[in-house]
């Protein structure tokens, strides 16, 4: 848990403003008439950016040993990718429902 340097005030408050700005952007986007898939993609990219900012600066992973990052993040990303297998079945259900109706 020892670390020589952490984010200074300037960085912390810039990150805070950045996160608030991205949130406002998301709310504005919610009222644009975009297709659901496009909207989902944009919102998820913005959310991942926000999560990365929080992890890097507030949780100061950026200032830790690189080995901590390597231990935690790739495994998590891999598990998340593995979870997406369920969506094939989900769209199959939607397809079957449309056949019944």
């Amino acid at each position, binding site marked *: *848990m020892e670390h020589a340097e*952490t*984010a200074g005030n300037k960085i*912390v*408050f810039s990150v*805070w403003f950045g*996160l*608030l700005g991205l*949130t*406002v952007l*998301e*709310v504005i*986007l*919610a*009222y644009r*008439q975009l297709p*659901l898939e496009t*909207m*989902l993609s944009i*919102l*998820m990219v*913005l*959310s991942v950016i*926000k*999560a990365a900012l*929080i*992890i890097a600066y*507030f*949780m100061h992973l950026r200032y830790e040993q690189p080995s*901590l990052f390597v231990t*935690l993040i790739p*495994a*998590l990303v891999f*598990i*998340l990718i593995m*979870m*997406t297998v*369920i*969506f094939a*079945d*989900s*769209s199959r*259900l*939607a397809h079957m*429902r*449309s056949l019944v*109706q």
Partner: protein
Amino acid sequence: MWLFIVSDAITFSAVIFAYGYLRLAAAAWPRPFEAPSIANAAVMTFVLLSSSVAMVLAVRASSLGKVSGAVGWLVATALGGVVFDILHIHEWLGLIGEGVRPFHNPWGTPMFGAAFFTMTGLHMLHVTIGVVYLLVIAVGFGRKKFSAADVEVSGLYWHFVDLVWMFIFPLVYLLSAKTT
């Protein structure tokens, strides 16, 4: 704490993926959140993000050995969590008043209620536990029973709860905003 956070992240991801599964498989998904609900959720996001900044300041004060500063910022962080919970419960009561139940709601697609209450409820539980955790740490650090490292670890937990909301807010609220 990092290991707990990764496992908790997987728990939340599973719930969020289940919501994605249900929403994709459903014929139609309700979009009940009117502008006041979205504004309320946006304010909740603001409160949570600001409490995270207070947490950063608490961790810094504790590592510099400033006991009263650290305790003050910890209490401020916990207060942010309480405000978040109050706003969220108000939102819940509004929806329940409109007739939303875990397996029934006025707009069809009965699973909407189950998905909504599970996701936001799990997150609200984390916030509530976080508030208790932070207050325990604040009291303990004030009495010198806990070290600066303990404050830092509680900070990791709090930032993680904040992080999860960054996904729940757009997925649950913004993608179900009533736009017309």
